[in-house]
């Protein structure tokens, strides 16, 4: 069966979401058409439009926000001597859930990967350098992903901060908390050993 044009367009829009395949997109689209009231559809359209007009990147840290600057950059009670550098805004949400870090953040909006056409100039790096001119900042904590791209990015930032007097650290990787050593695979274990600390 062929769907009406508008339904087909909606289906294609849903397919743009990560993890949504053809079948799921079809279900969402049909659900929208058959189960939602006109008010509900207006509500959804309204939320999408508000995202376009109200949400933007914080000019200081790059985090998504609806106020300038974002609630973290604005918060005077935060420790302004530390910056955690992450790849995406969603990483901040995870970090904030820890409830144990009270410093600042910086969102790179990507990671360096020449094979994906992303160089150092294509991520939000120059604004980080600009922020680091502030003497108050003593430590940069590199929390990019532990993938090859994340590692390239972290190493790159470390290199350009050499001699700046800023203390550069990298999040550790290894055995998950509460895990038993005997169940860790050999690769994880050797990474954990590499990153061992004085005790």
């Amino acid at each position: 069966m062929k769907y009406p044009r508008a339904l087909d367009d909606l289906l294609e829009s849903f397919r743009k979401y990560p993890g949504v395949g053809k079948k799921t997109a079809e279900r969402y689209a049909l659900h929208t058409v058959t189960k939602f009231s006109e008010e509900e559809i207006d509500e959804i359209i309204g939320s999408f439009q508000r995202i376009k007009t109200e949400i933007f990147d914080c000019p200081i840290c790059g985090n998504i926000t609806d106020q300038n600057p974002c609630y973290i950059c604005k918060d005077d009670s935060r420790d302004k001597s530390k910056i955690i550098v992450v790849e995406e805004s969603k990483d901040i949400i995870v970090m904030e859930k820890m409830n144990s870090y009270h410093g600042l953040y910086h969102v790179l909006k990507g990671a360096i990967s020449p094979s994906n056409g992303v160089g150092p100039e294509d991520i939000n790096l120059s604004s980080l350098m600009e922020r680091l001119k502030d003497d108050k900042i003593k430590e940069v904590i590199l929390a990019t992903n532990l993938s090859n791209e994340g590692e390239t990015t972290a190493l790159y930032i470390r290199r350009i901060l050499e001699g700046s007097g800023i203390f550069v650290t990298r999040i550790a990787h290894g055995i998950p908390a509460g895990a038993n050593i005997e169940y860790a695979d050999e690769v994880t274990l050797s990474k954990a050993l590499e990153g061992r600390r004085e005790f």
Partner: protein
Amino acid sequence: MKVKNLNLSNFRLYETFKISFNDHINIIKGNNGQGKTTILESLYFLGLTKSHKTNNDKDVIKNNTQYAKINSLINFNKKDSQLSVVISKTGKKAKYNQIELSKLSEYIGILNVVMFAPEDIELIKGNPQLRRRFLDLEIGQISKKYLFNLQNYRKILKERNNLLKSMQQKQVKDFILLDIITDQLLGYLDDIVKTRKDFLNKIAKIAILKYQEISKSNDQLQIKYIPSIDKNYKTEFLSKYQYDIITGSTSYGIHKDDVEFYLNDKPAKAHCSQGEIRSIVLSIKLALIDFIKSIKGDFPILLLDDVLSELDEIRQNQLLKNININTQVFITTTNIKEINLAKINNYKIFEINNGQIKECIKDEPNL
């Protein structure tokens, strides 16, 4: 390790195929083109998630079908386990006791496989790529760390080559990034070179003895690892930065390694007869069996694809003598008479005809 049974669906010519194997020797006889090799290919795929015949996995999917499936009950460490591999047009997935493993590297090596096929003489005579493939497949089936390093090396090599190409067009070149990606590459390279060296040393030590047994001689077989680079990595790489940018590719690295074989100090490629080359390859395969046994505590399965009949009687007997009674073996042949059955006990013979298989009764006079 024992493969107790094998179920294929849509694997090459087989729409469905079922067979239960003997614990020791399995002889599969049949004319050419009847699907003998395909059975060995599927066993190889079951263990290593690759074909020995093709680099394109999709080739094994039966025409006009969506996916091929290999399902098997194996016995390892006195325990039965279910293995399955599904090959579709978009990729392949492996299951261990019905649980899908997120990474193939977690699966490879559960069932260890050593194969000896006619085309294996190319290991000596063919291009270096085949020898690197040999290293990666064989080390990969015993070391997850090696697979991990290899996978990352390939990813970073791709990043590096892309960076080099993009640097060609830039007025101001970012040497910091090149330096960092080079360091990342070297981190994996060092480990891979050491592992390859160590592996070949160990194999060489066993293979020299195997060769003397098979050939009943005192001939000296030597296996030499020729790494494209094995010291002063950073200095060597640095000296090629400009050259690498011009060519847009990486001059040194494990993707340029090679292995050389010598018999009595003479290069095997140029000086050895066909028979000698076959014996060298056979010695290496037998050495692999012992080596895998020493690491995994059990023998890999051995696949002999149409090679027994190509060996003379002495070599054939030496090979059969070398096979431990606890090793499961799969032999294909067009002519059963060329196999010295008197030297084997505990075997089953299967006959294959146009994709149909049946077990032969041993007393049949026309065997």
